[in-house]
């Protein structure tokens, strides 16, 4: 059995995900299938998109940061997206902003987010990650700063617009909007495809800056491109379900254990598939067996937080 897993891990993961997805769609349909199927399909699609986005974003970010316990959310990416969203609402005015077509709105948010993320994290990572603990702490505190700023801007702009911000401070995998899923899903898929296309260069990048540069890799440009992809993927996942801090850490850790960390061509799909399995499987358990719709995100957060603590205490900062 283990030999089979070792030989074809990706195929097995894909099969597992297919089975879970089918179970999620068709288990216990009952007479109202016409109504329930589209609803379930939206949720399933959302979970797959979000899972793959978070997984790929985490792998990419860990490669850029040369570190195995970082995730974009720990470094404040999600909070940055929420801040950009709030700032846009404040600048354009709540009325004007909410009446914009969703695609344009999302495009604006993502554009602003990519610019901000590349500027900020480009400078943070540009000098090379020397003092990792300081960098993580910086990210965590930046997250606090962004969240407080969002709260501040929201309070200052208008008590009514406060609900816009409040709705995105609590993650839920069941709150997926179908229109946004189409827009965000296509953007995320494009970004993931690009990441896959880059996987060989990412392998070189993972060797560390000096080695990668001496092998002729255009390090700076690749770093900025990867950061932009991370920003896009985080925007998609945060827009769809809200901020999720530690999920990527668990998923990518599992992927490392299963396929190793040396080849992105295997690591990226493995992480994306595992993310889908955890989300769909978890949602199946919580929604159908326990009857708790929105607890999955909280459980994932708690478990992920504990895993992160354990990694820190083991001294696995490098």
């Amino acid at each position, binding site marked *: 059995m283990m030999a089979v897993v070792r030989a074809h891990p990706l195929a097995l993961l894909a099969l597992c995900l297919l089975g879970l997805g089918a179970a999620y769609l068709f288990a216990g349909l009952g007479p109202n299938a016409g109504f329930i199927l589209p609803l379930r399909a939206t949720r399933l699609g959302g979970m797959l998109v979000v899972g793959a986005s978070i997984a790929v974003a985490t792998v990419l970010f860990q490669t850029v940061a040369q570190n195995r316990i970082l995730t974009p959310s720990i470094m404040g990416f999600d909070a940055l997206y929420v801040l950009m969203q709030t700032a846009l609402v404040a600048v354009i005015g709540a009325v004007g902003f909410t009446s914009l077509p969703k695609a344009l709105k999302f495009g604006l948010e993502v554009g602003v987010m990519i610019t901000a993320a590349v500027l900020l994290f480009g400078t943070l990572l540009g000098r090379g990650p020397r*003092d990792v*603990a*300081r960098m*993580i*702490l*910086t990210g*965590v*505190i*930046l997250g*606090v*700063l962004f*969240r*407080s*700023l969002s*709260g*501040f801007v929201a*309070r*200052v702009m208008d*008590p009514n617009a406060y609900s816009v911000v409040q709705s995105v401070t*609590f993650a839920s995998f069941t709150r997926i909007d179908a229109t946004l899923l189409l827009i965000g899903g296509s953007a995320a898929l494009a970004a993931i495809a690009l990441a896959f296309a880059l996987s060989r260069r990412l392998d070189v990048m993972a060797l560390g800056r000096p080695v990668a540069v001496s092998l002729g890799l255009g390090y700076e440009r690749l770093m900025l491109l990867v950061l932009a992809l991370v920003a896009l993927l985080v925007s998609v996942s945060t827009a769809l379900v809200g901020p999720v*801090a530690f999920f990527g850490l668990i998923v990518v850790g599992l992927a490392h254990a299963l396929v190793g960390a040396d080849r992105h061509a295997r690591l990226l799909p493995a992480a994306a598939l595992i993310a889908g399995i955890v989300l769909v499987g978890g949602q199946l358990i919580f929604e159908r067996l326990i009857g708790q719709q*929105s*607890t999955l995100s*909280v459980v994932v*957060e*708690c478990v992920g*937080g*504990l895993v*992160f*603590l354990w990694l*820190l*205490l083991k*001294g696995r*900062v490098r």
Partner: protein
Amino acid sequence: MRLAALLTLALIPLSALSLMLGAASVDVAAIGHDPQAALIFWVSRLPRTLAVLLTGAALAVAGVILQQIVRNRFVEPGTTGTGEGAALGLLAITLLAPGAPIIVKMLVASAAALATTFLFLRLIRRLPPREVLLVPLVGLILAGVLQAAVTFIGWQTDLLQYIGTWLMSGEFSGVIAGRYELLWIAGAAAALAYVYADRFVLLGLGRDAATNLGLDTERVLHLGLAVVSIVTALVVVTVGMIPFVGLVVPNLVSRLMGDNLRQSLPVVAAGGAALVLACDILGRAVRYPYEVPVGTVLGVLGSALFLWLLYRQPAR
């Protein structure tokens, strides 16, 4: 000592401003003969100002003590999970015994805060000794896990609105006479810390050194933890968690006057009071007559200051 004088001087106009500023317009000069003005002044303005001063001073002192105990400059009750622990205890007692008197709630919250701080100390003992910055990081993640638990339980039991104010978004808009007096206990606990100031300095030298110098290390440690937990729990119970005060003020004071606590503790207390009062006034003024919670204002200012400290100070 000039610093202490400066801060005290700054506190006078700040307090006056705080007494005059609020949603209702009150002519402070008319308190003597206008019963309406007198009511607002005695029931809302004065208690609120006192609550802010007490909170700021007590939190800053708690931060200093915690930094001496942990021997790390980057910890405060908000980055060790202490505040979240207090919130968890408060939530538990609210669910199990909703009718419990406030003093019982306070004790339970303090005990939970104490337990969390002990857990934190246990955790950081296992860290590699050279990694100074991992200590606050572990505390922040611990706080995050506890916060997720609090949010989850609150969400299951429909108390989310009720507990929203406990975590990171403390505000003083709800303070009126009869609802803030617990903070005097926090102030008293901070004052007690001043009596033991020198012993906390010794504790900051490390266990062995302090014991060699004849200090009853365990007792001082437990006293310090008790002060920190009581202050944190009382602040959380009364106004909600207020971040970064205990972190930023002691660090700034220490940069200016070093670590002789006997001298610097009063300055730290005055500085904390001034900082929180200034932020509270800002929160009241920026979108008058609406208010921005002081926790949010400090979240912005405090995290910016903290980042500055992080990059200014050589990592020790």
